[in-house]
């Protein structure tokens, strides 16, 4: 008798991804920007994708950013609290973790997935920040990368100020912490790598900020000129008003 594999299907994941692709593309109009030539290469094999977490829709944007891979998001157990949510997150192959008591079981399943050439996506800030600033990164991702020997790819999701704006996703080049650290790194070494990754994320944010500036540069000058001329006109009118006898 043929042994049935205990492997979860990607049917639901792919079905939702395909059906949501067109409305998603129309709504977000995602635009990928690569930080360098090295960042342009496609992510192949096991890798950890890290991004800033400014809103609840960030996982969807990440899926548009790296559209050619199936993402396996690391999600806190609070997100699995209802049957409906559990159905969605489990069918989207999210990995449930307990933030307060991160166990070896979850850690081992992440390492196994990375070694099986899967893409693990996570938000190392640990929570939704609700702002554009990149906050302190937790060093768990470095431990995952070191234990699996896989690279970390930093991605910055630009915060849309208005819903009609395009969604920019800035992709950085892969960083391999295993090559940067000694065989048995200390916890402070891992914290240093986490800080370095945060600096890389900030660099991506600068790229994202410069996109908006380039586009807005001309209108700002024009507006200033209009403003100046209107101020000048007002002051001229005031002068005329002062000079005219009552």
């Amino acid at each position, binding site marked *: 008798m043929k042994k049935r594999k205990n492997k979860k299907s990607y049917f639901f994941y792919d079905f939702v991804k395909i059906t949501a692709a067109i409305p998603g593309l129309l709504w977000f109009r995602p635009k990928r920007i690569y930080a360098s030539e090295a960042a342009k290469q496609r992510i192949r094999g096991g890798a950890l994708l890290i991004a800033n977490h400014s809103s609840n829709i960030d996982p969807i944007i990440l899926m548009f950013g790296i559209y050619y891979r199936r993402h396996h998001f690391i999600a806190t157990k609070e997100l699995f609290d209802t049957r409906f949510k559990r159905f969605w997150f489990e069918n989207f192959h999210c990995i449930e973790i*307990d*933030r*307060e*008591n*991160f*166990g*070896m*079981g979850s*850690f081992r399943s992440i390492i196994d997935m990375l070694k099986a050439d899967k893409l693990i996506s996570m938000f190392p800030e640990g929570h939704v920040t609700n702002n554009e600033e990149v906050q302190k990164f*937790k*060093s*768990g991702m470095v*431990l995952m990368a070191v*234990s699996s020997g896989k690279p970390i790819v930093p991605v910055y999701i630009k915060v849309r100020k208005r819903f009609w704006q395009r969604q920019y996703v800035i992709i950085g080049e892969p960083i391999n912490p295993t090559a940067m650290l000694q065989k*048995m790194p*200390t*916890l*402070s070494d*891992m914290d240093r790598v986490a800080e370095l990754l945060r600096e890389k994320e900030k660099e991506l944010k600068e790229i994202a900020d410069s996109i908006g500036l380039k586009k807005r540069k001309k209108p700002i000058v024009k507006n200033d000129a209009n403003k100046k001329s209107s101020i000048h006109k007002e002051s001229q009118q005031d002068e005329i008003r002062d000079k005219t006898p009552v």
Partner: protein
Amino acid sequence: MQLSRKEILEKLQDIMISINDNDRERIEACTEQTRLVEDLGLTSVGMLYLVIVLEESFRIKFEDVGAATFSTVAKVIDYIEEKIK
């Protein structure tokens, strides 16, 4: 491998120093009653890393343990003692 509690504690101290050299003095002075999180300042990542290194050093496999599983050094020694029996 038959090790006494004292030998396990010494080995545990060596491992903790190797992964967290900033707290060498506190680790060297620790006893079985020392609390891992409150006294040694071990984070959840630190605990996972400690478990990974302990698995390699003692050639044992930890179950689904987490940061809250071991409150004191004594509990870690109990666990290792049970596994290497």
